[in-house]
């Protein structure tokens, strides 16, 4: 086909598919994923991920992080995705955690030295979608080894640097939002654009942080999942999908 004809045919096809709104149309909940999401965990192995095999394995198709009474840790350690350092992205994943557990998903993060456990090559600093079995912290934005609490569940905050984060607005009562979290599998959706960080859980927006702290914020970085200091615990992740923008 002639290149110009081919291109104009393409354009015409695109135009034909263009959505034309009607006054009666309302936005409805999107089911499934928008185009552009790709799996970043193969469901069989930890290929593409790096961490201490003492704590991380795949079991029944599920990424599993576990601390037993024999493997208690003195500092947090991570399983790190080695497929890239996304800046603007959407990340979806399901998790399940034991009642005494603490974990979290780091993003736009870096690997840092661990003075407490110098042999730990998998300590991270950066934004974290926090997770704990008691749901005190679940879905908050916590900056591991950095600026700490950036926004708690139910908060939309503005981080300006040189002072504590400022509360811009409420996203709902934190206790009421906690009722959407189950003790079984939960669906996380993280949306990160420029300096706006949105944490959703089970279809509810839980925390939004606007980060204008230029010297301390990061524009891209690693994704990783945490096993946390404390007692024995188990965290499970499955169904990882990433849409890098």
């Amino acid at each position, binding site marked *: 086909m002639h290149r110009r004809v081919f291109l104009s045919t393409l354009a015409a096809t*695109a135009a034909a*598919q*263009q*959505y034309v*709104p*009607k*006054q009666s*149309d*309302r*936005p*409805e*909940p*999107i089911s499934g994923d*928008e*185009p552009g999401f790709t799996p970043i965990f193969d469901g069989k192995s930890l290929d593409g991920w790096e961490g201490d095999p003492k704590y991380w394995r795949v079991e029944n198709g599920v990424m599993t992080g576990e601390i037993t009474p024999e493997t208690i840790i003195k500092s947090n350690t991570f399983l790190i995705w080695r497929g890239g350092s996304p800046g603007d992205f959407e990340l979806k994943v399901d998790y399940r955690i034991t009642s005494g557990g603490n974990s979290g998903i780091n993003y736009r993060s870096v690997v840092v030295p661990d003075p407490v456990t110098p042999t730990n090559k998998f300590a991270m600093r950066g934004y974290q979608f926090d997770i704990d079995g008691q749901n*005190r*912290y679940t879905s908050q934005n916590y900056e591991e080894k950095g600026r*700490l*609490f950036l926004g*708690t569940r139910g*908060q*939309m*905050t503005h981080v300006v640097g040189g*002072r*504590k*984060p*400022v*509360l*811009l*607005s*409420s*996203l*709902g009562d934190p206790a009421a939002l906690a009722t959407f979290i189950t003790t079984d599998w939960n669906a996380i*959706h993280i*949306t990160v*654009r*420029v*300096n*706006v960080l*949105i944490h*959703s859980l089970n*279809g*509810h*927006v839980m925390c*939004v942080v*606007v980060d204008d702290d230029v010297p301390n914020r990061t524009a891209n970085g690693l994704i990783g999942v945490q096993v946390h200091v404390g007692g024995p615990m188990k965290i499970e992740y499955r169904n990882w999908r990433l849409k890098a923008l």
Partner: protein
Amino acid sequence: VTLLKLAVLLLPLALYAQRGAPPVPPLVESGFDQIFDGHSLNGWDGDPSFWRVEGGALVGQTTTDHQPAQNTFLIWRGGSPADFELKLQYKLTGFNSGIQFRSIELPDIKWAMKGYQADMDGEQRYTGQIYEERGRGFLALRGQFSYIPNGGKPGAVSSLGDDKDLKSIIKPDDWNDLHLIVRGNMMVQMLNGRVTSMLIDDDLAGRKLDGLIGIQVHRGPPMKIEVKNIRLKKL
């Protein structure tokens, strides 16, 4: 004594760590400019038969006998902000109004606008949503975090709360605090300290990344919109 002093000093820190939530101070505004002087229409442009200043507020009003030919707007002439925060207080009595942003004027109709709107109505059906006047219509309903793919239909990605709860934070026939945060292709609308709608607009042809600010007088049943304390922070 020194140890005691130290303990007293560290106590709040210990409590902070224990409670696990940041003590967030009340909002301190910085970088905002008033874009309405409180006593005149200086810097604003609209049909003078519908717009006036009264009681320190911009007032737009229709009656059964005095109707615009189509929705008409009071347009701010101070610029076309791209990324910004806008805060204001409004009071709506009657039919329907809204705050336009990143909008354009229609070339052929004076004081008519097209673009994003923080919507509001007297029955609180639409208040808190993001609507696109003369454009793509309903983009994010109250309670929706909505996404528009390129060339596609807006859809809700996630919920911002139960619609009844969100409706209950609106004060009918009284002053309400509206706060917009608009950055790149993402926008957040807040009412009385509560996020009511959010939108990410990836529709390259349909979206707009800067534009005019305006206030709507809606054609139809009688209405009166009052807006005051309008503060803009360009980013």
